[in-house]
């Protein structure tokens, strides 16, 4: 009986956390899916960025439930956070072509209530937590943007 109570309590206490706990941060250097990430970041900045040196942070996110691994690219100079699903056919532009983009000037809101049922808005807290995780688990590189583009 005691075991039943304690196991029931454990389930009740851990269930609400499970959805978030399934996603864990990984270094791009530790997962082969991100091989060639430096070239991808360079191509991204050259194709979509402005001139000048800029820093870009990349961190991996592995979802245990669905076995999906994706990259999160934080690019302050462009005010963008990009969710990147690397290509299987060695496409050197797969990051530069990525369409899942958060515009941090428009798509970041103060509260969960403002996120509502949107598929893409995020909270300020989510952004802060993600930036922190990128600094801790990811890699930050300085990349030169295209000459002459402002």
């Amino acid at each position, binding site marked *: 009986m005691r075991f039943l109570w304690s196991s029931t309590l454990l389930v009740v206490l851990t269930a609400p956390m499970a959805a978030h706990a399934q996603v864990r941060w990984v270094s791009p250097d530790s997962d082969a899916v991100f091989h060639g990430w430096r070239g991808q970041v360079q191509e991204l900045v050259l194709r979509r960025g402005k001139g000048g040196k800029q820093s870009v942070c990349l961190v991996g*996110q592995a*979802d245990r439930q*669905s*076995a999906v691994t*994706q990259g999160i690219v934080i690019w302050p100079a462009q005010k963008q956070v990009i969710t990147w699903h690397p290509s*299987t056919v060695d496409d050197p532009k797969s990051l530069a072509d990525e369409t899942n*983009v958060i515009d941090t000037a428009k798509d970041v809101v103060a509260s*969960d209530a403002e996120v*509502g049922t949107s*598929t893409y808005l995020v909270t300020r807290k989510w952004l802060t937590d993600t930036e922190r995780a990128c600094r801790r688990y990811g890699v930050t590189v300085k990349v030169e943007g295209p000459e002459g583009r402002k």
Partner: protein
Amino acid sequence: MATASDPLPPENTDAGALVRLLLLETIGPLESSYNRDESLKAMRLMRQVVENRLRTPARYMAAGATSEQDIVRLGNQFAGFRDYPTLPGLLAGKLAKLVSESARYPAVATFIRDAIEVVSAPTSGAASTTVAAWRTTGRGAPGRNFRLIGNYQGNSFYEVVPVPPLKTTHRKATGHFRPHKAH
């Protein structure tokens, strides 16, 4: 009308809007985590979300919506679809790339065919009929009133948690409220 060079349904139709939404919101076969079975599950859930929102559009920032096209366009709910059928350059480019690659990669042709079949089937065939939202996995839930159903191909799907009815307290008609004495 769909052709071999452009197999997608016309963009100004409900089917056209839904197929484009599914293709743009789901991981494709040239992306590393693609899994066809999981992709089909995700697409079916997405169709069901749009259908469910059409029943109570005001709840999803789409008051006045009378069609699936309205649901994907109104309320800024789906990234890039606010001005549909006009799509931002990146999204339009991705669709064009998918269509052109379908001639080169059979898996891409299958992916597009799957989206069309999910949209044109008599029912969604989704694992949940109460699914009401999805979010890119890892970006958090839509709010406290939503419960996670599952993660499929880079998206997390949620259903609305029913709000329990308010408890009413019954008092005698002539009685007065008296606080309990502290023991």
